[in-house]
């Protein structure tokens, strides 16, 4: 991947001077155009991107079009538990809230939170992976043991333990967690941090393995020979070459985080009311199994599924486009 890219870049830089029509040469495509050409061939990825753009629009524009779900005490008895209809496309819940409004207003937090968590995981992971591989020796051994430790505990288990920072557990025999003051703000800022800080090791291991091969290449030796400092070599010379696999891994992480967030919120450990995410909407739905109003649980979950599906497609497309030598599934 790396050499071929550099070849393309080198030739792209050389060619304009040599030939009158540089664009006619397929080798002369810019990296971005080259990427786009490969990405476009992946039908699923293009479909996934379209779906994802739609979901982002729902999250960003939707709340301006559809009013925030509010309890209407006077009309509650008429509004509650309605199946999907033209008035309420996704039906209403047991206190008369419109499920579509719940989904639209939950989208923002679900997507934003996963994106933030991904950024935390990728930046910490990339930093640790780079440092570990670049310096090697004791630093590498210690950092990789830490990574081993993280990877040997099921993520969900630690996540559940760490999420106690958001809510205090209910008393023995009692139900419903005691909510810490300002819990909703706390959950919004701490949850992405917790998710990110618990999942960086996978990124670190990936970055380390790529860095190990890159740091042996001539251009790194060259940079060292002209007296570049370690920091400069790591961040200016090596980092751009490891970014591609990180982008792929990061994309797939977003999907995982959306599911993890919704499960935590579902258990009452994630996003705290009055904030709303897809997971909290599902949590409400669990309380009324017997009523049989399936639409209440179906639509928030469907949006989780669609988002994760879109992200998985995009991730696969990115892998093929950014890393053409990687094994295809």
């Amino acid at each position: 991947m790396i050499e071929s890219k550099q070849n393309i870049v080198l030739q792209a830089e050389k060619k304009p001077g040599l030939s009158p029509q540089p664009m006619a040469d397929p080798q002369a495509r810019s990296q971005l155009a080259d990427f786009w050409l490969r990405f476009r061939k992946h039908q699923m990825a293009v479909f996934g991107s379209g779906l994802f753009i739609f979901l982002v629009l729902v999250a960003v524009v939707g709340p301006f079009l559809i009013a925030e779900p509010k309890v209407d005490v006077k009309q509650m008895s008429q509004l509650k538990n309605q199946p999907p209809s033209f008035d309420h496309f996704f039906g209403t819940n047991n206190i008369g809230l419109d499920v579509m409004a719940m989904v639209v207003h939950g989208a923002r937090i679900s997507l934003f939170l996963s994106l933030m968590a991904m950024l935390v995981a990728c930046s910490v992971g990339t930093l640790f992976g780079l440092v570990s591989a670049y310096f090697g020796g004791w630093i590498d051994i210690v950092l990789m043991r830490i990574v081993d430790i993280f990877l040997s505990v099921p993520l969900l288990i630690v996540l559940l333990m760490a999420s106690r920072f958001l809510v205090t557990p209910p008393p023995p025999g009692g139900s419903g967690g005691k909510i810490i003051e300002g819990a909703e703000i706390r959950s919004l800022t701490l949850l992405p941090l917790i998710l990110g800080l618990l999942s960086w090791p996978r990124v670190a291991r990936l970055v380390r393995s790529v860095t190990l091969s890159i740091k042996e290449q001539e251009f790194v030796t060259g940079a060292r020979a002209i007296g570049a400092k370690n920091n400069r070599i790591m961040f200016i010379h090596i980092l751009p070459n490891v970014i591609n696999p990180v982008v792929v891994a990061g994309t797939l992480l977003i999907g995982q985080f959306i599911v993890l967030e919704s499960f935590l919120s579902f258990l009452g450990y994630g996003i705290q009311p009055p904030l709303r995410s897809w997971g909290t909407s599902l949590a409400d739905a669990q309380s009324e199994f017997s009523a049989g109003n399936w639409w209440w649980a179906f639509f928030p979950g469907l949006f989780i599924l669609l988002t994760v599906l879109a992200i998985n497609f995009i991730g696969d497309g990115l892998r093929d486009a950014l890393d053409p030598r990687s094994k295809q599934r």
Partner: protein
Amino acid sequence: MTKFIIRRILISIPVLIGISFLVYMLMQAAPGGPLAAFGLNPTLTSEQLDAIKKSWGLDKGPLEQYWSWFTAMLRGDWGTSFITRRPVLDEIVSRIPATLMLTITAFIIQQLIALPLGMWSAFKRYSFSDKFFTALSYIGFSTPTFWLGILLIYIFSANLKILPTGGITDAREATFNTPGYWDWWSKTPNEAFTSLAGHMILPVVTLVIVGIATDSRFMRSSMIETINQDYIRTARSKGLSEGQIIRKHALRPSLLPVVTNITLTLPTLIAGAIVTETIFSWPGMGKLFIDAVNRADYPIMIGIVFILSSLILIFNIIADVSYALLDPRIRF
């Protein structure tokens, strides 16, 4: 080989100690410890609270607490649950049958469907049915397990009313894994079996649907890699039928990475069952863990983490060793 195994075990020990230390500190640092519940009780004096603290070992600093837990654990004493006051190991062992019953049943069904499906997809690569299963499996592994569980409960329990919403026995039946429960099995095995099977259907289906998606994809890619090898082309040019090629040449090498992958995922199945067990209130280890987290039951929490992490490390070593034993191309 023996040297390799010993070295791997020796490396695993500091990792395991590191896990238990970090998790212990994380557990201690979280607000609302096990005593938070007593804060709501107005009749409790501060002297009584101190006494409880002391008897639970919570009056010492976190490092000291860890050390006393660690040394006791090495002697085989895993502490007692703060809630039930029963030894941690007894609590965990009593939950193992339910978890294993659920995960093993799901696991077997899942492999029986996923492996043939994956092989078939590989041989019919890019055909309509392969594309259809590919699309299905994408949807399968994008589906949140807990949502699938909720939907199944809505459909089969709430609306159709043909299956129970959760639990392992009905309320009028004996509690699972008590002497009364096993009496029931020995007296009326048919009735007990029907009840158990009925309770198991929904959680097993939930686990299986998501599991098939990933495992069949893995089998498919492994099989595709195998049939691209030269010796398969040779077999084909000899004029062997597709069935003979699969049975004699492709099956064994393509199963190799699959077996290793299965070994690696076995311990995570138990952790993965947390989600299913919560949705279906299945009285297994996952439920025990969630309940322990809810009530800040430190000894149970750390006990489960320690067992699961040890399992993961052990299965990592088994996977490496089995790979080397099965594949003559790999040497240490």
